[in-house]
Every structure is written in structure tokens, then in C-alpha cells.
């Protein structure tokens, strides 16, 4: 399979010229193949969000490069923010939020209506088209944010702890929805989380980051069969092995500091 994304020795130091610079990312290197589901796992504050913002082009790395491979000339990636409730456009309804990317890229009204309808159904928000974001629960807001990103047909989807603030039930539900969408749309997903189980459940591979200044501690290949199942997959022996391995990795990272 082709490489979708190359992270080559990316480092980021905030406030470089000040007396107390923050080395957020030491040096990170890894590749992502097309169609892969990759999780980035690391203790909070280790620069996961920073890395996604660098990949999305919102900020520049201090060192290293990001290469994004696409067929088209245009870099087609979308970022689902950790703060999804602040990232939705409050002046737009659910349907209008989802259509935003299509509107600005000049889709025809017919195409636009069709695609909005498709993604409303896909994320299960039928009947909430004309609601404003503040009228929705956290889970529904997150679904809207995901649908808004997917409606642009990205080939690379970056997600920053998207289910972090949800209750366990809607979290499991959304995890399964995401896996289904990922399979249907055949996109590459880079999924940031600090939840070990979630990373194992979702991913093909897990990039485990160390404490700040972060580097890649290890890359875990998750060989659990797909489609995965919330109860069976999570209770399999392999799953438990992965969990203890990663726990040890993260523990080691902490002990060293």
C-alpha cells in the first residue's frame, strides 16, 4: 500500500526566543499508509494536539517535515478538534454546519443537498437538521463535527481526542460508527487519544509517545480481527496483552522523567 503521510523528525518548541521555551515535541518520525487507522497515544501534555495542528498546517514545526501524499494537487485533509463544541459554527444549523465545506468549495446546490442528506443519515442525525449546535447533546455535537469533516471527502482525517468528554455508552457507540464510516469511505484516519483501550479497539497501529519532550516510544501493530466487537474484542486475550504492553510502555516513559 502507498504511504499517505510521512512525519519526518518533526519537532516543536514554543516560545523559542523567550527565556523559558517549551519543548512540546522532541522529535517524531513515523509513516501512515493509505487507508490505515492509526492512533496516537500519549500522556496528556506530550504534544498530541500540537502534532495534529502541524499536520493540518495550522502551525509550523520548529524542525522536520510533514509530507502528505494525495492523488489530487490539493491537500485534502480535515481536522476534528478536541473542543468540538467550540469548533461548530454556532450561527449555523446542523445541516448548514455539515454543508460548510461544500459551500466554500463551490458545490452545486443539488450536489450539496444530496451530500448533506447522506451524511446526516450516516451519523444518525436525521430530524435534527434544523437544530442549532447548542440545542444538541455533546455526542450529537461531535457527530455533527465528524459529518462536517467527512462531507468534504477528505482522504486524511485527523481526530483529536474526539470522544474524550463523552459518557462510556455514547463513546462506544461513536467508536463503532467511526469504524463503519472509515470502512465505507476508505479514508486514512489519524486518531489522537489518551485512552489505551480505545486506541487498541480502533487501530491498525498505535504510535505510543513518551512524556514531553516527546518522541515515539514504540509502534504497536494491533492484530485483532475486524470487524471488531465491543465486548468480544475487548475481552480477548490479545487485547489484554496489548493493554499491559502499552501500560508498561507509558509507565516506563513516566518513570524516566
Amino acid at each position: 500500500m502507498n504511504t499517505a503521510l510521512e512525519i519526518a523528525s518533526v519537532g516543536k518548541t514554543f516560545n523559542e526566543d523567550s527565556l523559558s521555551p517549551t519543548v512540546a515535541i522532541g522529535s517524531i518520525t513515523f509513516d501512515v499508509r493509505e487507508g490505515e487507522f492509526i492512533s496516537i497515544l500519549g500522556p496528556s501534555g506530550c504534544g498530541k494536539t500540537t502534532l495534529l495542528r502541524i499536520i493540518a498546517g495550522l502551525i509550523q514545526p520548529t524542525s522536520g517535515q510533514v509530507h502528505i501524499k494525495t492523488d489530487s494537487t490539493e491537500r485534502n485533509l480535515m481536522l476534528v478538534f478536541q473542543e468540538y463544541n467550540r469548533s461548530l459554527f454556532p450561527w449555523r444549523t446542523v445541516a448548514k454546519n455539515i454543508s460548510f465545506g461544500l459551500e466554500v468549495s463551490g458545490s452545486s446546490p443539488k450536489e450539496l443537498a444530496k451530500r448533506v442528506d447522506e451524511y446526516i443519515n450516516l451519523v444518525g442525525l436525521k430530524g435534527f437538521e434544523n437544530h442549532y449546535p447548542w440545542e444538541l447533546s455533546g455526542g450529537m455535537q461531535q457527530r455533527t463535527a465528524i459529518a462536517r469533516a467527512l462531507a468534504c471527502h477528505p482522504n486524511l482525517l485527523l481526530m483529536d481526542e474526539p470522544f474524550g468528554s463523552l459518557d462510556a455508552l455514547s463513546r462506544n457507540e461513536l467508536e463503532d460508527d467511526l469504524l463503519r464510516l472509515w470502512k465505507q469511505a476508505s479514508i486514512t484516519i489519524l486518531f489522537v487519544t489518551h485512552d489505551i483501550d480505545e486506541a487498541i479497539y480502533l487501530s491498525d497501529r498505535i504510535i505510543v509517545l513518551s512524556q514531553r519532550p516527546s518522541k515515539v516510544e514504540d509502534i504497536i501493530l494491533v492484530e485483532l480481527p475486524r470487524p471488531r466487537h465491543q465486548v468480544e474484542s475487548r475481552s480477548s486475550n490479545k487485547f489484554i496483552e496489548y493493554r499491559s504492553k502499552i501500560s508498561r510502555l507509558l509507565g516506563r516513559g513516566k518513570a524516566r522523567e
Partner: protein
Amino acid sequence: MNIDLKLVGFWGGEKHVNRIGIGKLSGFALIIALLLIWELLSRYSFIDSVFFPPLSTVIYALMTEINSQNIWIDISSTLARCFSGYIIAITIGIPVGILMGRSQRIYNLFEPLVEILRPIPSAAIIPVAILFLGIEDKMKIFVIVFACIWPILINTIDGVKSIDRILIETGNTFRLNRNQFLLRIVLPASSPNIVTGMRISLAISLILAITVEMISGNNGIGFFILDAERSFKFPQMYSGIIMIGMIGYIINWGFVKLTNRVMKWHRGFTATLV
């Protein structure tokens, strides 16, 4: 414990009823009481009734005026001035405010000028405006624009500067061009502040229209009021004042209705009439 809870509920309920029902009624009752006192004071000559005619006389004059052609010419010329100035102030204030809010360079360039001009009471620039623009509508509209622009400009800058960083970055992930970014992200995101500024300026535009009409010219409600006073037509003078009060109320009511509709996406944005 139970009784306590019930009491809280009871008082809470009562307060609520008070706020929406009796509260409003008592406000109207106060107005009616004041009008009655006016009628009585002047009818029984506690105050010189030439300068202070009874309410009934004023209402009679008001009705006569409303049925005449001329007053409508005055009303429409006042409104025309008011809205011309207001629209110009919006057309300048919002774009400049957005640019100042987005670009530190433009902000640094204009901020000192704004801070020097803004505290000048608008009436104080009337003599200068007359020197350069004459005594006709050009001068009058200029003064209205000068007065109206500051609340719009300042609130727009505030609104733009306080846009959530996440919203800005979200906009950036959609790779918008400059115009798309300003029109589809910055403008709507700062609209609650912009609307607040526009509402303040709407009231100001009417105040200044009346003021400049009293200084020069021969039409408009401002002129009508002053002219009535100079010709000792005091009931007409008071009727002009009442008219301008009613016009102000209607304009504000329309604005509140309109913005509550446009801003209905904004939780908690329900402008009230006062």
C-alpha cells in the same frame, strides 16, 4: 425540610409571575399616573398653563398635526437624514472594525486616531462641520455619521478580537480565501457585538438628527419643535416631542424584533426593548 422546599418554590414562582405580568403592568400604570398628574397640574394652574398646556390640549394638537400633510414631510426628512447617516456609519464602521480587529498593523495605525476623536461630543464638531460642509444635509449627515460610527466601530473591534481561537482555526482547516474567511467566519462570529453597537448607534442617530435640525434648516421634527416654541405654539411643541418619542420607540422596537430574528441562533441573545 419539605416545607422549606415548598416555600422556595412558592417564592420563586411568585417572582416569575411578577416579572412577566404585574411588572410590566405596573410600568404602564406609572406612565398613566404621570400623564394624569400632568393633566391635573396644568388644568388647575399649578404651573403656568401657557408654557405647560394640559395633556388633552397637547393630544388635540398632536391629532391635528398627524392629519396634516406638513408633519409627514418633516417626519420623513428626519428619518431620511437619520437613516442615511446611520447606513453610512455602518458601511464604514463594520469593515474598518473588522480590519482593525483582524490586523494588528491596521489597529496600531488607526487606534490613536480613534481614541482622540471618539471622546469629542458630537455636538462640538457641528461648528467645524458647518465651516467645511455648509448648513445643508451634507453637514447634517456628516454629524450623524460622526456620532454613530464609534459604538459600531468599537463593538466590531471587540467582537472580532474576542472570536474563539478554535473557530478561527476551524475556518483555516477549510482553506478559505480571504473574503470567505471574513464573510463566513469573522462577520457571523462577531455579529452579537456588532448588533449591540448598531443598536446603540440607532438611538444616537435620531438624537443627532434632531439636534442638527434645530441648528439649521427649515424642515424635520427638530425644526418643527424649535419653530413651534419660537412661535409660542406650545401644544405643537409638546406634540412634536411626543412624536419623536414615539418614532424612537417604533424604530427601536423594529430593530429589536429584526435582530432577535436574525440572531436567534445565539443562545441568550434576546434583546429587550429597554
